[in-house]
Structure formats: C-alpha cells, structure tokens
C-alpha cells in the first residue's frame, strides 16, 4: 500500500478545499440572486406568486439538502436530461440557498417601517421603484449580519455534494482516510480547515451585528 506523508494528506485536503470554496461562492452568488427574485415573489401583491414562493420555500427548507442534490443530479438524468455534476451541484445549492435567503430577507424587509412604503407610494413610486430606492437600501443594512451568518451553513452544506461525485473537503477526508487508516488525524484536519473557513464569517457577522446595534441606538 502506498504511504501518504503528512504533507500528502494536507496537500490533498487543501486541493479539495478549492472545490468547497468554489461551490460556496457559486451557491452564495447564485443563491443570492435567486433569493432576491424569490423575495419579490414572496412579498408580491399577487396571491398566486406569493403562494408559489411560500410552497417553494416550504419544500426546499423541509427536505434534506442531500436528497435535493441527489434528485437534481440523477432525477433529471432519469428524464434523459444529462446534467453535468457541477451544474447539478450548483443548481441544487443555489435553489436551497435561495429558499433560506429569501426568508431571511423577508424578515428584514418587514422590519422597514410601514410609513416608508406609504410615503414612497404617495410620491407616485411604483412597487418596483419603492423596493429599489426605498425599501431594499434600508433592509440591506439589517440584512447583512444574518446573511453573512447563513453563509457558514452554505460552506458546511457543500459537503453533501459528494453524493454526486464531488471530491470536496469532507469527501477528500473520507477518501484519504480509506487510503491511510488515520481517521483522527484526518478528520481533525478537516474540522480545522472548515473552522478556518467558517469562523471568520461567523465572527464578522457578529461584529457587523454589534456595529449595527450601536448605529441604531444613535438614531
């Protein structure tokens, strides 16, 4: 059996971490965009659109991400649609992220005072203009800490893409463990790398939140 040096282990884990980071970025950027769209549907005046968004969120928040990934990759394949793994992973992560972000952001939009809607309406703004110029800029401030906080869940969520063949950080950990029989060293390293990725996000979310609270008190 081939011997892995400690450096081999670390190198391979770090190489796999690139996928974790890339997948996180994709799901975050894509999920943010889709989440914004979903947010518009969720607070739309049209009942059907609101209902659609509600059921969408219920579905994606109510089933394990693992199963969503599986169905995105293999389920579509069953219908003869050949989805490459990166697309399926991206798609599932984006849809999943969107469902959470839309819900987080809805709370932030609802936190904007009702008077702001009325004042902008009485100035003749349409609904999109109200969102674009009045509501979102104010909601954005409140939304940053929970959004950054949620990104930690996204980073950890990418671990599940191994079901559709991605050798990202945790899968690489398993594979290397199988080649070396050193589970504790390797899972320790894996945990450490995750912590190094996630902790700065958690921390900055906390700091932002504290800053915001101080800013609020000054008003």
């Amino acid at each position, binding site marked *: 059996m081939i011997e892995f040096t400690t450096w081999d282990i670390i190198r391979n884990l770090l190489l796999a971490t690139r996928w974790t980071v890339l997948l996180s970025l994709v799901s975050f950027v894509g999920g943010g965009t889709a989440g914004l769209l979903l947010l518009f549907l969720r607070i739309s005046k049209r009942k059907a659109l609101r209902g659609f968004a509600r059921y969408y969120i219920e579905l994606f928040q109510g089933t394990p991400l693992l199963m969503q990934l599986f169905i995105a990759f293999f389920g579509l394949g069953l219908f003869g649609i050949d989805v490459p793994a990166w697309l399926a992973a991206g798609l599932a992560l984006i849809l999943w992220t969107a469902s959470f972000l839309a819900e987080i952001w809805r709370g932030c939009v609802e936190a904007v*005072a009702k*008077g*702001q809607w*009325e*004042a*902008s*309406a*009485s*100035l*003749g*703004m*349409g*609904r999109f*203009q109200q969102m674009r*110029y*009045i509501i979102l*800029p*104010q909601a954005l*401030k409140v939304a940053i800490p929970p959004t950054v906080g949620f990104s930690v869940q996204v980073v950890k969520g990418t671990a599940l893409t191994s079901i559709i063949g991605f050798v990202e950080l945790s899968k690489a950990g398993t594979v290397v463990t199988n080649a070396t029989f050193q589970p504790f060293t390797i899972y320790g390293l894996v945990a450490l790398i995750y912590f190094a990725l996630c902790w700065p996000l958690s921390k900055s979310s906390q700091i932002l939140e504290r800053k915001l609270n101080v800013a609020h008190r*000054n*008003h």
Partner: protein
Amino acid sequence: MSLIEITEVRKSFGSTEVLKGINLDVEPGEVIAIIGKSGSGKSTLLRCINGLETINNGSISVAGAQFIDDELHLKALRLKVGMIFQQFNLFPHLTVGGNVILSQTVVKKTPRPEAETMARKMLERVGLGHKFDAYPDELSGGQQQRVAIARALAMQPIALLCDEITSALDPELVSEVLAVVRELATEGMTLLMVTHEMKFARDVCSRVVFMHQGRVHEIGPPEGVFANPKTPELRQFLGVH
C-alpha cells in the same frame, strides 16, 4: 367643476364601516380643515383620496380624472395630490436633498440637475436650504416635517393632504411647521388638512369639516362652525356647552 370631488364614498375594514358615505367638493385654492374625534375616519378619508386605501363604494375624482385602482391611474393621481404624514416618513438612508430629489428623478424622470435645482428651491421655501446635505436623523422633528413638505411640493402637486402633521412635534416646534403651511395657503395651494390646532384652522382655513362616526357631520366656514356649532356632537367636541 371642483378640483376634488368626493361622492358617496364608503370604506370598510373587514365588517366595520369606517366611512359611511362621504360627500365633499373642494375648489381650487381652498384650504380645508378636517376635525373630529379619534376614530371618526379622518385619516382614512385622506388615505382614500391618495389611493393608499381602496374605497368600497362611491367615487373620488381629482382634476376631472376618476380614481381607478391600477398602477397607472394611481401614479397619475399621486402626481396631482401630495401627502404629508404625522410621522414625517423621511427616507433615513438619503440626505435631505436626496429625499427631495429622488421621486422627481425616479417617478417623473426629471434630469438630475433640474431635480436638484427644484429641490434647493423647495428647501429654501421651507427655510432649510442650508440642510441640503444633512441626514434626516440630524434634524429636529419640525425640520424633518418641513423637509417632508418640500419633498411633496417638489412633485408640483395641485393639492396637498396633511394628516396631523404637527401632532408628533414638541410644542415649541409646531409653529415653524404651521408657518410654512400658512404661507402655502396664502400662495393659493389647495390644502386638505386633518388637524387638532383649532386656532390655526380658524385663522387659515376657508372651510372646516367636522367628521363624526364616518360621516361629514357639519361643514362650513370656520366662523360658522366654531362660533355656532349646530349639532350637540360638535359642541361637545369643541367643549362649548
């Protein structure tokens, strides 16, 4: 033809009818004070005129155009009628200037330099030209309310609706806002204002509307309404026995 024609307007929230058939015609240049007890429907009436609430019955027309509840008609209506609220509702993320410019550029597509000129002019008019770059939370309540007035005026409405615009102000700040309104009145702006400032209503208004339980209970020139209230409800409201 009157500027604002309100005919048999009814409005319910759920099963409670808040406006029970309102009729009111406002001529250009009129200054109308709406008074009445809390809950009598004053705010609701103003909100209906501005399309913030949809009416269940009757009709409202402004400058000949009837009020229909779709985005296009609503926008046309709101361009004609400005509204000012008790809580100022300035946009906290924009400067004073930004507050006055925004709706011009967004709604009317006025080019930015023109909008800015207009904004400065309107802010001068309410005595706040020097606060152009300040943020709302750096202003006193009275100043904020004057910015709100400037913001509405910049849209060049043909009438202005004011809902208790001095009620949230500390007593020493009320007069500065009323002074601005008084000036608007003398300049010929059509004004519909809900107010508790009886002295102001008496001095400035052409007509006073007393609302009671969702109806126009008494209406007339201030001298008549304040000096000779006809109904016991108005007498009680005014505290004369």
